[in-house]
């Protein structure tokens, strides 16, 4: 009789990386649906093109790096990265913009660092930040939420640059509009429908809610823990509430901050990227709070209307530090250890 020799445990749970990634993809569906509903074909072109390019690049890079291609492609991680990047891009983004972003994300931020699990920075956000800095015009070209008003063919032609994107179609995001309100006070800004069409505001709010729904799916499936979203959104709400309370005429309300930007999306889908986030539960709280505070500071005092990418990347830098100082108290120990002091051992 030949018996298998194996190390315990002999049983394994049903979880697998590919399933985790597939569930993340599934959780993006409500958000994608609402996004398409408001912004039309462009969103889908972005998604499809990004995913095709992403998977192809991942396969190429794996081959170049001498790794088993199909084994790693099956983990679906490239798809997740590409989807998250694509939904962050403006619906009218041209194909080269998408391709540049995918190269930055998959090639540079992920594979050149060693592939899945080795990248210190969130690949989608690295790409987003790169595009935002390099191509500010293209990256801020959001159309008004007209849904599928522009036909499939027109959209496709726009996507591939055959016809120019008409300026008339562009519309500011609520955060951008509020930022550029100039001397106006808050109440004056909200009173003027020309500055920010109600449709815009509604679209963003609905999208935020859709992303939130997807996030709840992830929470329910225990694919993420509550720590990062709660800490991030909570700190953003608290800090914006404080500023709004002190000077309501100059600062947006917590509701604007939470619902009119990418805060919800970022909280559930970006900041919770396991590879680049802090490890321990306590660490995740610090990490989330850091992102929330940075988002507020950059939105309010920085040069960019939204700040998820910068805030997340900045906190990615601090993850090793946070991890060292937020080790949990292990069973049977009086207190948690902080930092790594090897000389303590002696």
């Amino acid at each position, binding site marked *: *009789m030949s018996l298998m020799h*194996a190390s*315990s445990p002999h049983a394994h749970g049903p979880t697998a990386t590919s399933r985790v990634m597939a569930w993340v993809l599934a959780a993006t569906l409500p958000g994608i649906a609402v996004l398409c509903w408001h912004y039309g074909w462009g969103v889908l072109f972005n998604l499809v093109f990004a995913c095709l390019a992403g998977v192809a690049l991942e396969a190429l890079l794996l081959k170049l790096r001498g790794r088993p291609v199909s084994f790693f492609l099956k983990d679906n991680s490239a798809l997740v990265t590409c989807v998250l990047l694509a939904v962050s891009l403006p619906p009218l983004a041209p194909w080269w913009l998408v391709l540049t972003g995918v190269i930055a994300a998959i090639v540079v931020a992920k594979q050149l660092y060693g592939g899945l699990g080795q990248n210190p920075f969130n690949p989608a956000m690295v790409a987003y930040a790169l595009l935002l800095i390099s191509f500010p015009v293209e990256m801020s070209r959001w159309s008004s939420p007209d849904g599928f008003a522009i036909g499939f063919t027109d959209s496709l032609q726009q996507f591939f640059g055959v016809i120019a994107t008409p300026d008339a179609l562009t519309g500011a995001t609520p955060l951008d509009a509020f930022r550029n309100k100039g001397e106006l006070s808050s109440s004056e800004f909200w009173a003027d429908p020309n500055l920010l069409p109600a449709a815009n505001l509604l679209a963003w709010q609905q999208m935020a809610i859709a992303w939130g729904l997807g996030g709840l799916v992830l929470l329910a499936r225990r694919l993420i823990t509550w720590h990062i979203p709660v800490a991030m959104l909570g700190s953003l709400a608290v800090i914006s509430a404080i500023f709004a309370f002190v000077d309501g005429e100059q600062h947006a309300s917590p509701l604007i901050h939470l619902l009119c930007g990418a805060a919800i999306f970022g909280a559930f889908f970006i900041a919770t990227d396991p590879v680049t986030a802090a490890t321990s539960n306590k660490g995740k709280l610090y990490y989330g709070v850091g992102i929330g505070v940075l988002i507020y500071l950059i939105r309010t005092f920085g040069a960019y209307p939204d700040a998820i990418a910068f805030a997340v990347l900045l906190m990615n830098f601090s993850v090793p530090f946070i*991890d060292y100082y937020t080790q949990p108290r292990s069973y049977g120990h009086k207190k948690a250890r902080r930092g790594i002091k090897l000389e303590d051992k002696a």
Partner: protein
Amino acid sequence: MVLSLLKSMVTSSRSAATAEAEHTQKGQGAPRVFDFHGGIHPPEHKALSNRAPLVAAPLPREVVLPLSQHIGAPAQPLVEIGQRVKTGELIARAQGMISAPVHASITGVVTAIEPRQIPHVSGLEDQCIVIEREGEIDEWARLEAWRDWRQQEAQDLIQRLQDAGVVGQGGAGFPSAVKARVRERHAIDTLILNAAECEPYITADDLTMRTHPEALIEGLEILASLIGPECILIGIEDNKPEAVIALEQAIRARRADKRLPPLDSRLEVVVVPTRYPSGGEKQLIKLLTDREVPSRGLPADVGVVVHNPGTVRAVQRAVCFGEPMISRVVTLTGEALQHPHNVEARLGTSIADLLRLAAPAPTGIARLVMGGPMMGFTLESDALPIIKTTNCLLASSPESLPAPAVEQPCIRCGMCEQACPAELLPQQLYWFSKAREFDKAELYNLADCIECGACSYVCPSQIPLVQYYRFAKGEIRSAQHEARKSERARHRFEFKQARMAREEAEKEAKRQQRAQAAQKSAAARADASAAADTTSASAAATAAAAAQPAPATDIKAFKTARAAANIALKKAEKALKAAQDGGESSESDIAKLEANVTAAKTKLASAESALKAASEASESAAPAAAGASTAGTATTGAATPAADLKALKTARAAANIAVKKAEKALKTAQDSGEGDISALETSVAEAKARLAKAEADLKAASEASESAAPAAASTSATGAAAPAADLKALKTARAAANIAVKKAEKALKTAQDSGEGDIPALEASVTDAKSRLAKAEGDLKAATDAAGAAQGADKGPVASAAAGSAQTTDTGAAGSSANAAAPAAAAPSADIKALKTARAAANIAVKKAEKALARASESGEGDIEDLQTLLATAQENLRAAEVRLNSAQAGSTDATPAAKGAGELIPEAPKPAAGSVGRGSMASNVTLSQAEIEASRAENLAKRHKQVSIAVKAAEAAHRKAEAALSEADDENRQRLATKVDRTRRNLEHARESLAEVQALVDAQ
């Protein structure tokens, strides 16, 4: 600010929730169940085996009983092959503090005691006793049954657990008797029955509880009577409702039974939610008591003792029925079995036999696991026995436990952290283990990992995390082992250095003493001259003053110095007065004399103060110093290579006195409450150690002199002990001389016949040879005479005298004289002087032989070949003598420490000499004596090795004992015991060092 705000919000809300939950539970009066971090919910698969009743397995035809079925020292076999044994008979007894005996589990004949493969993770072989059944008999050898165990002494009950070989059936097999003695060290308030049985598939405890609930309750009562807890909690997962009902019924019945005394402690069944690993000891303690076992600690540290149902039942059977632990309940389960169920099987039954009971599926078994799917280990064969800790045999099909998937990269998802019941950071540990950063892994509390496998179970990347941790733990263990080893080596080296330094200091002190004595007499001489001359007064005072700062504590010297200074002062005063009275001297002269007087006064004062200080110091230091110095002398005396028995006896007596003095001093100091008591204690301890050493030395020396006497004496020219070998050498020498005479005569005759050659010279040489022959005969006679008379006398000087007398002999005798001289060095005295004489004698012998050879070759007469042989022998002897001298000189420094340590080096001292004796002997007796000497040398060495080994063991035992005493000591005795531990440790190191040295000699041989 925001951070702290948020943090406090989170904390407060959490504590509020907890408090509320506790309140609710209290209100309902239900037993409180707390929570542990993490855990998983793997499919249970318990229904496979828990539906069939518990049955007894048929008696096996053969059992294989490993001697190590428990934690601790393996048992020691008491039976022989071919011996008949009854069921329950003791066949191997426990060895050491933590160990358990083994009993025959069937009636039959012992057919083998040999290494066999045992069911262990390592897959290694271990010593097993194999018993083959005889017919269908199952004849029992029970211990006395104590149905009325309440009447028994606790000590007897504990002894019964030990005698019955009861060990923990749940995990590692910890001897239950040791656990039952926990009260000696810890206060226990909670006894927990770990009935959680959280591992999937396993139902052995479940069926035990359902089938024998009364036995479990009684077993718990027995254990409770031994450890005296306030409450007994039966922790059981909510997936075993039938067991819960059975236990609750048994408890009600027990409470209702008026014939028995009421329960001493609160006894409760606590149902806990099903979650792996709630049956982990630490996790169950947390669930039931909310206490955490400290890291690297024991449950007893938090007042808890945990037992497994199987163990508790074994306890009950051992006490109430006198049945040793020879069987246990085993779950036979898994998808590859058609009839999974639980059996009560005799220990040692083959796994294949048991699996047959459960009807293996024809498709075969893919993976055979002993234990559960989470923490069990795979077996490579089913031809293994079950042992005391075998709770489950899981025979799985390829589908139920598929082969592990390929490991994917870690995505740091943190699911492992959410699942870890030890609240570790499994993924960090994984990175550290993978990168071999073991120090960091240790800092992240790798040691607290219980290897439950929850992290591996949930890992989406299929990383075998536990395997990484085991690897890291193993590496850390071996690194620690290495570190300990090198630490020991370092310690040994440092100790040796310190000892050598100490000995050097002792020598230096002696040397200084001598130097001081010389200085003293010089000072006295200086005084005398100072007294004669006025102007030399200041010089004398200077000399006295110079003597003062010397490190000497010799009061006498100070007194002399003071007296000298006094005299110098008087002289100076007298001179001054005379000069003043006479009025002849110039003013400058008077001034000079006045200055002299002042200087002399100063010097007197300083001499007086120095004397006072010295006498004070000597008073305070006297007892200790006396003890120490006497002891020091004793040590030095004992260490001298002379190893003179008398000297050693004196040394022992001196050491004895030193000990008494030191003790007296200590007592006085203790009584008066003054003085440095700890220093005095140390000095007493040291004096005692020295006494012990002196005694050991004396013993060794007397043994050595006994054992070495014949061999050594045999080589002595005077034949002090005069055995044949020596006489033989002398006889050979005489024969050689005789031959020389004959040759010379022959040469003379030839010359006379031929009328050629230098006849007078040849005549002279004949006369010379004859006189030498006469001398050799005289030597031989003297030796023969002395043989009887001078037995036991000290051989050194005599031998050298003999060597001296042998020097006068000529070529023929030269070799033998050197031979005679050389063995003299073999005398146990190992007197270097004697060896030097011997070397000189050998040297002379060589020269003589050379001269004779030269003469013979010049004259062309005599047997040149013979003379060449003689020269060669003489040269060999000279070399041997030199080697011996060198080794003796080296030995006098080297041998001292070893002799002091093990007290056994002395017999070794003559050995190099003995070896060279063999080489130096005449051809006729070379083989014999060489072999003899080699043999005696080997024997001596072996004997010494044994003795030193015993000494090491004794020292180890003493050290352990001392450490144990220290660990239990109260504050009063701590200081004393610490000193003792220190001393025993030093002794141990010393003994080990000696052993290493002897080992080196053995190896060299």
